[in-house]
């Protein structure tokens, strides 16, 4: 009798184990498959519209063919502004947290706040920049869009800079100090050099993060159907054009939106893969 009870209990445990294992397999297939499905349909819809014209022509009026040259250039300009403003601030703040104030109260507070900024809703950042840059000046502008993206760059760079500098061995700092190098020079010439690959990775990840951001641009840099590189005027950007074209009733615009989405996705994937490769080579050397 106890034997059969034990056996049936054992069978029951084995059954629930098998069920859970099967569920785990199913979840992985569903989860990964779903995401592959999205990328697949993106490739399918986007590639058909991909041609040289996309990179050489302006956005068309409804009903005619054209390209995405002005939004592509606009996005590049906005990204450049964001990186130019956000990177120095981010690196300096990360330097303080890892080098000067590693055990400070200030550092732990900044780290906490920074982590929250890292995943704060980007549309709120757009509202913030609207309040401080667009409303007082009275017009939408490329500068406002760039600054809004810079606000998103800063937390990413702060985080990676701090992490990477913390990994630099203290022996390097001690050696630098022992030959009489002042602290600031030791940081700039020794620590930055040792952590360079990781810090560049941070910037790449930040670019990947902002290159698809739409929400903060909607009411800062707005949009522009025409060629414009004037940063005091509204400027076109790829994500906002995708938003506008995808929601339009015109077939040409919709297919351009798919192509734009494909370009952004490929750019983001390329950036994140090269960031990964950089970290991998950094670890080896």
């Amino acid at each position: 009798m106890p034997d059969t009870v034990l056996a049936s209990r054992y069978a029951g445990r084995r059954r629930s184990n098998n069920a859970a294992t099967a569920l785990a397999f199913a979840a992985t297939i569903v989860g990964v498959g779903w995401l592959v499905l999205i990328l697949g349909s993106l490739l399918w819809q986007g590639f058909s519209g991909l041609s040289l014209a996309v990179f050489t022509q302006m956005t068309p009026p409804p009903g005619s063919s054209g390209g995405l040259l002005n939004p592509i250039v606009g996005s590049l300009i906005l990204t450049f502004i964001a990186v130019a403003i956000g990177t120095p601030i981010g690196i300096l703040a990360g330097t303080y947290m890892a080098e000067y104030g590693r055990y400070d109260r200030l550092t732990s507070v900044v780290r906490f706040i920074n982590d929250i900024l890292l995943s704060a809703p980007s549309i709120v950042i757009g509202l913030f920049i609207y309040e401080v840059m667009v409303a007082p000046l009275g017009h939408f502008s490329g500068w406002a869009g760039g600054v809004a993206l810079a606000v998103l760059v800063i937390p990413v760079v702060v985080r990676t800079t701090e992490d990477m500098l913390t990994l630099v061995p203290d022996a390097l700092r001690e050696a630098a100090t022992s030959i009489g190098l002042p602290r600031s020079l030791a940081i700039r010439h020794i620590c930055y050099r040792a952590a360079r690959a990781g810090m560049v990775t941070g910037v790449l990840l930040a670019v990947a993060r902002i290159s698809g951001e739409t929400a903060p641009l909607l009411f800062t840099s707005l949009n522009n159907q025409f060629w414009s590189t004037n940063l005091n005027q509204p400027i076109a950007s790829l994500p906002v054009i995708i938003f506008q074209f995808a929601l339009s009733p015109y077939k040409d615009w919709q297919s351009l939106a798919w192509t734009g989405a494909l370009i952004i996705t490929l750019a983001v994937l390329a950036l994140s893969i090269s960031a990964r490769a950089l970290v991998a080579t950094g670890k080896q050397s």
Partner: protein
Amino acid sequence: MVDVALQSRALVSAEAVTRAKALDRLRLGDAAFRLMTRSAAMGVLALLSAVIISLIAGSLPAIKTFGFGFLVSESWNPVTEKFGALPAIYGTILTSFIAMLIAVPIGLMIAFFLTELCPPWLRRPIGIAIELLAGIPSIIYGIWGLFVFAPFLQETLQPFLINTLGNVPGIGSLFAGPPYGIGMLTSGLILAIMVLPFVTSITRDVFEAVPPVLKEAAYGLGCTTWEVVRNVVLPYARVGVIGGVMLGLGRALGETMAVTFVIGNAHRIAASVLAPGTTISATIANEFTEAVGDLYTSALITLGLILFVITFIVLAIARYLLMRIERRIG
């Protein structure tokens, strides 16, 4: 003799002067650099304060006009300038709830698969794939949802739900109405796909941090793989898992573009999850540039402030829990 001595003393003192000067310069540079880094760190704090202050300043007109009623009012009428946040808050919470309901179990099971069942050669590729997918911009999910997913749901899942669960008394009203394709359920499902990589990668990390000794001891007692995960790994990693889930929730609450495409932008609270609705972020994205009048703009900024407060609380809890588990591991 005297001359030489004098000369050399002069030389020495000249050298000392330049040396002192150089040292001063270095000291100054040192202090300046330290000050710069410190002010940049303070700048991060100032940034967050500036965001909060500007949002509060922008929402003052709406708060003065509507008071606390803004939070509980259901009306949203730009013509008569009557605004209430309830439909948007309801939509934000409902879509995020649907998203977490689906993403958390799937994410946990994927983490279980990756840490316990997956052959080692497959572990890295799947892990990398999931992390890469976490970086795909939300607008991509939005455009896919609008053109591929919503029509698909309109033809398959939604009629099915209406014909089966829609007739069940009690919960039937949740699945009533025509299959629009777009709507709350579709938005929730897309959010689920979006947050899945976040939830999965964090849960996997905390699962991996469970000391092998504990697991080996459980295996040694004769536990099955599932029993080890259920009774050893999950309890040990509980705090971290909750932190990861909250982090995903923070993303889902604030997500704009993926939702804006498929929510339908309807300012009402429908009983059915198939009906179109709106979320805070979708309302702002759709209406902000077209908002005429200070009160309309201010009402939208107030929505932004509410969203910020909600996500701030959720993210703060998430970070606190994750910090706790990091401390325990470290």
